[in-house]
């Protein structure tokens, strides 16, 4: 399953253009330090953080996409930076807990 499939199945909104990438597990955290320590290449990173510093963190661990939950407005500079560094930013109105339920429903497990 790639990022585009996940996006379509759950009804996520894409905030920038991206090349679909294989999704390998999910990582949920709002803490950059947590992501640095725990997320793996190909993970879908789910967070409410919208500050542009999520981009370097996402880049560092090479996640397949960042999903911003709770319908948070994402600053333009975050999106701009993400696009520049080839990081897909998706968005949903669901809070983290509900989104996780749906992702699990797709058969995604944490890796």
């Amino acid at each position, binding site marked *: 399953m790639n990022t585009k499939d996940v996006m379509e199945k759950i009804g996520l909104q894409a905030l920038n253009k991206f090349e679909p990438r294989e999704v390998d597990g999910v990582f949920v955290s709002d803490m950059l*330090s947590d992501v640095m320590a725990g997320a793996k290449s190909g993970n879908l990173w789910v967070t409410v953080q919208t500050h*542009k510093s999520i981009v*370097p*963190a996402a880049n560092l661990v090479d996640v397949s996409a960042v999903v911003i939950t709770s319908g948070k407005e994402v600053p333009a500079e975050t999106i701009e930076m993400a696009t520049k560094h080839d990081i897909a930013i998706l968005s949903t109105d669901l809070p983290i807990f509900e989104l996780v339920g749906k992702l699990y429903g797709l058969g995604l497990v944490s890796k």
Partner: protein
Amino acid sequence: MPECQHQWKMTNIEFGFIVFEKCSHCADLRTYFSPDDTWDEYKEGDCTWSIVENAQTFRFDLQCTECNHLEKFNDLMGLLFCTGCLEDCEVELLRKKYEAEKTWLLVAFGFLPQSKTNPIPAYKLEILSDHFNQRRDTSRSRIIIVPFNLIKDISLCRGEFIHDVGMLSLEPPEERKPLF
């Protein structure tokens, strides 16, 4: 016996805070790792240290899963992502060079003031780069970690620290100030 092709793994992970202290007397900045989020102000000789920022981070060591070699990283304060703010900064020049190869540049910071005189050795930065590259799909892009003394003027640097700042705030996060 051939040398071990180290496969690095994070170990001894400890979550905590980087405390940024500033002295109102000498205007010096110093940083340290603390497991607690302290906000104390204290006097030390002529200096009065008060905390300016308290960012969440974590400490870790890297260990090779093959040969168990352990490399301590307790002198690493954090990583900064170069955003290319200064045209003539050496980091920016390197960044431009590497960008074509889809290699992203990160700057490693040590704690202040020790790292000014005692920077993180280059071999450790290589290990750190290796570790992160081992975790990613390097066919898409790589990362490279360079020492912070390449930065032309720290006071002007607008790079992005990969730290959690303001997470404890009960107010919605506002635009964060540069740390230096």
